[in-house]
């Protein structure tokens, strides 16, 4: 994300965005007083473009484009350290999760490879009902154009008999696929009302 010299707050402030984040996460972001405990706790601060404290600040300022385009929200591992220690009892991890979903919907995912892994994972679930680890990794690595990743692990896992070559199949796979279809069709909002925004094929499974 390109940084500007002056952030023209009034022009770029999107109050609907603040409300949507609060609704989707169930959190009151105005409670954040920027103490930095979340970023001090976060194991991934070193990798974020904006540390999580600043993500919270940007949400308070309604800076939708910066937030939804940030890599931070996709690098969050949901480890709950921020949530556990927030002095204002904000479920920060939940806010990050809400932002991930929103960035998917607005088609502004900054790290497509991570989304691709998630998508591959969900495709596996949708197809087999369960995750087929042995199949998932190579397919993902192929799609991510780094086919030799984790090649070093293969011989040992083979020797240990840890790799299975056939996916375990759930009998009622139709039911699982139906769950995906219903969710995809309706994408229920918190209030239970259907939200008919179609997703681009790029951002959906």
């Amino acid at each position, binding site marked *: 994300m390109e940084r500007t010299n002056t952030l023209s707050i009034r022009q770029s402030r999107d109050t609907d965005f603040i409300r949507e984040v609060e609704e989707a996460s169930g959190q009151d972001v105005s409670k954040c007083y920027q103490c930095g405990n979340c970023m001090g706790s976060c*194991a*991934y601060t070193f990798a974020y473009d904006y540390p999580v404290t600043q993500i919270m600040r940007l949400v308070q300022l309604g800076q939708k484009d910066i937030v939804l385009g940030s890599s931070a929200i996709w690098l969050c591992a949901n480890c709950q350290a921020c949530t556990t220690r927030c002095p204002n009892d904000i479920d920060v991890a939940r806010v990050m999760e809400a932002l991930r979903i929103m960035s998917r919907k607005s088609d502004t995912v900054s790290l497509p*490879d991570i989304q691709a892994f998630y998508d591959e994972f969900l495709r596996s*679930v949708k197809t087999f009902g369960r995750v087929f680890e042995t199949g998932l990794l190579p397919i993902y690595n192929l799609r991510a154009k780094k086919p030799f*990743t984790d090649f070093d692990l293969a011989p040992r896992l083979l020797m240990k008999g840890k790799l299975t070559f056939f996916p375990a199949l759930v009998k009622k796979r139709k039911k699982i696929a139906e769950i995906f279809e219903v*969710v995809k069709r309706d994408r229920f909002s918190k209030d239970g009302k259907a939200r008919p925004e179609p997703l681009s094929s790029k951002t959906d499974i």
Partner: protein
Amino acid sequence: MKRVAYYKGCSLEGLAAEYDRSTHAVCEAFGIELVEIADWNCCGSTPAHSYDPLLSAALAGRNLAIAADQGCDMVMTPCPGCLKSLKGAQEACEDPGLRKPFVELVGRDVDGLKTVSLLQLLYEEVGPVAIKKAVRRPLTGHVLIPYYGCLLTRPAQKAKFDDPENPVSMDRLLEATGALVPDFPYKTECCGATYGVTRNDFVGKLSGRILDMTARLGGEAIVVACPLCQQNLDMRQDQINKYQKSALHLPVPYISQVIGLALGMDPKELGMDKLCVSPDILFEDRAEAEGKAQGPGAAA
């Protein structure tokens, strides 16, 4: 005999097969009947709740619904990631906005069930005292590091088990086997989670420092209760060594394996041979050398 629905989760039929095997062995030893959830499906894990709250809730919730239909009131899963999803489904079931579509998709409500991890089940339903009594092969003289990972006790309001910053349940269970358990400051630090696949260096950095601290405290092994932590620390230990230019060789057994070992079970039966880093050091009997009086098994 206590009857508990068993939600295995995908990892336990793949890379964490030994966790499944040792869980069965230990539960059986303590008279807990594990009822496998029929035709269970994947909980959706992180990818599902990064996609839509309802997807995650419905995928996990279907399993709870089956468990309830099988007449169980408690569901145990050894995987903390799965546990988070199961609890998420129960939360959705109580959420006024999500309840209706949730029930439509999975066919019933699931908020009445108690959902626990294997660690919670062993700690609350068996307990350190019973374990100590049952120990046949005390691990006296072995220094074991308890590593809980990020999700087992967090967030506290949802996990409702042990302490979010300094959990002690695994410490107590390991002490019951006779092992020496130092105060480990990285008990709940993140191991790198799923970034083993997408950002390998993250695991090098985060799991690396957990292994370093283990070695610094004189730990011979780092005991885990999460398949993902186990994969990162064990399967990827060579990658970590390469990343941080170290030569660590620390076995990473599951809590169920360590307890099984102390109960005198055959390591093979517990799937100890499946661990990437050899756990042979744990098989050394140091109780003799330490003097039998100190062995908790000797007193029992």
